[in-house]
Every structure is written in C-alpha cells, then in structure tokens.
C-alpha cells in the first residue's frame, strides 16, 4: 500500500471527530479570566505577605535586642551594687581589726 492509498483508506474510514459544544470558546475564555485573576491576586498577595514577614522578623529582632540591653544594664547595676556592699563590708572589718 503506497502513501496515497493509505491516506485515502484512512480518510474514508477514520472516525469523525465529535462536534465541539457551541459555547466551548466562551467556556475556555472564562477559565482564562479566572486563572488570570487568580494570578493577579497571587502577585498582589505574595509581595504583601513577604513584606509583612520581614517587618515582623525585624520588629521581633529589635525587641529581643532591647531586652538584651535592659538585661545587661540591670546586670551592671547589680554588679556595681554588690561591689559597693563588698567594699563597705571590707572597710568595716578593717576598721574593727585596727581599733583592736
């Protein structure tokens, strides 16, 4: 069987393609519109969400560092107070020993 014979045989006997629904183009267009609006929403939401995450992370980091500073300050105050008390105690001991 040559090309032409086979082509003829196939064209004459192959099943017909089912008719498309008359509104198929409109239906596909609706899907396209829905998809594009979903994408648009995503493009709007994704940067907004990223910015929010960055802001939250930065604020949390700054709160942590402020807390750390506060802690360091309190610790230094405490150390100073302890040093003063120790000095007072040593002085008292020294005075009492020397008076004897």
């Amino acid at each position, binding site marked *: *069987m040559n090309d032409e014979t086979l*082509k003829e045989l196939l064209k004459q006997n*192959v*099943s017909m393609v089912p008719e498309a629904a008359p509104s*198929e*183009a409109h239906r*596909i267009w609706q899907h396209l519109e829905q*998809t594009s609006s979903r994408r648009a929403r995503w493009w709007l939401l994704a940067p907004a969400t990223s910015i929010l995450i960055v802001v939250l992370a930065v604020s949390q980091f700054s709160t942590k560092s402020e807390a750390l500073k506060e802690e360091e300050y309190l610790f230094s105050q405490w150390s100073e107070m302890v040093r003063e008390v120790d000095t007072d105690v040593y002085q008292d001991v020294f005075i009492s020993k020397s008076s004897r």
Partner: protein
Amino acid sequence: MSLHSKEEFIKFYEDHSVKIRGLLFRLVGEAALKDLTQEVFMKAWMHRKKFRQESEASTWMYRIAYNCAVDYLRKESRKVSHGLPELMPDSLEQSVSMRQMVELGLANLDLEHKSVVVLFYLEDLSVKEVADTLGIPEGTVKSRLSHARDKMNKFLGGKGVPL
C-alpha cells in the same frame, strides 16, 4: 484581559479548534478531548507572546497539543495500543466494519508512530511540518512513517482487508 482580547480569543479558537481537536481526538480519544482542548488553548493563549513567527501558528499549536497529549497519556499511564486486534476472535473480526478495522489498526500503533500518521495522512502536514511539530529530524519522520505504513499494511492485510 479586555473585551477586545475575548473577541481575539474567539477568533483564535475558531481558526485552530478543528485541527487541534482532530489531533487530540486521534491521540487520546473522546474522554479527555474537552479537557485537553481547554488546556491547549489556555497554554497557547497565555504564551502567545512567546510564539516566534519562524513557523506557522498551526504548527506551533499542533506542538502544544501533542505535548499535552503526551503528558496526559504519561499521567494516565494509558497504553495507546489496546491489544484488541490480537484478542479479537475470528468470528467477531468478520463482523467488524472497515471503519472499526482502520481504528484498530491506528490503535495498534504506538504514540510515536500514531502521531506521525495522524499529522501526515489525516491532517495533511508535510514531512517538514511534522518534523517541526514533533521537534524531530525529517529523516526520523520518514522512517516512522515507513514503519507505521508497514505495520498498518501487516495488520490490515492480516485481517483480510484488500489493499
């Protein structure tokens, strides 16, 4: 997308739908035809700016349709060859019409051969256009056509179809 785009899309659909639906129907059958037609037109429309004028728009559309069909068949793990010709008893064979015989002959081909047969014989594409559509060399198209023709000859001759 504007209303103007909708009109353009309808025109685009009308220009290509017959050919695209024809190819999809021959490759995947009726069950997935509606969904795949939608997928092909959505992909083509969304990527229409990427289309280079180097080839015909129809060749580009055929290529998208072919790729969608291949993806679908891969996902479904569906065998293109249903094995029906071998399983059919002789008594049943005699009552099968020529149309059914040709359909079985086509179903007996694997996707690679079936796609070149559909594009070349049924969609009247040239060997170069088939090669462009499938992204394969022209020599490969010729060899697949020859192999498919031999297989069809063998199958139809074996079933008593006068050639």
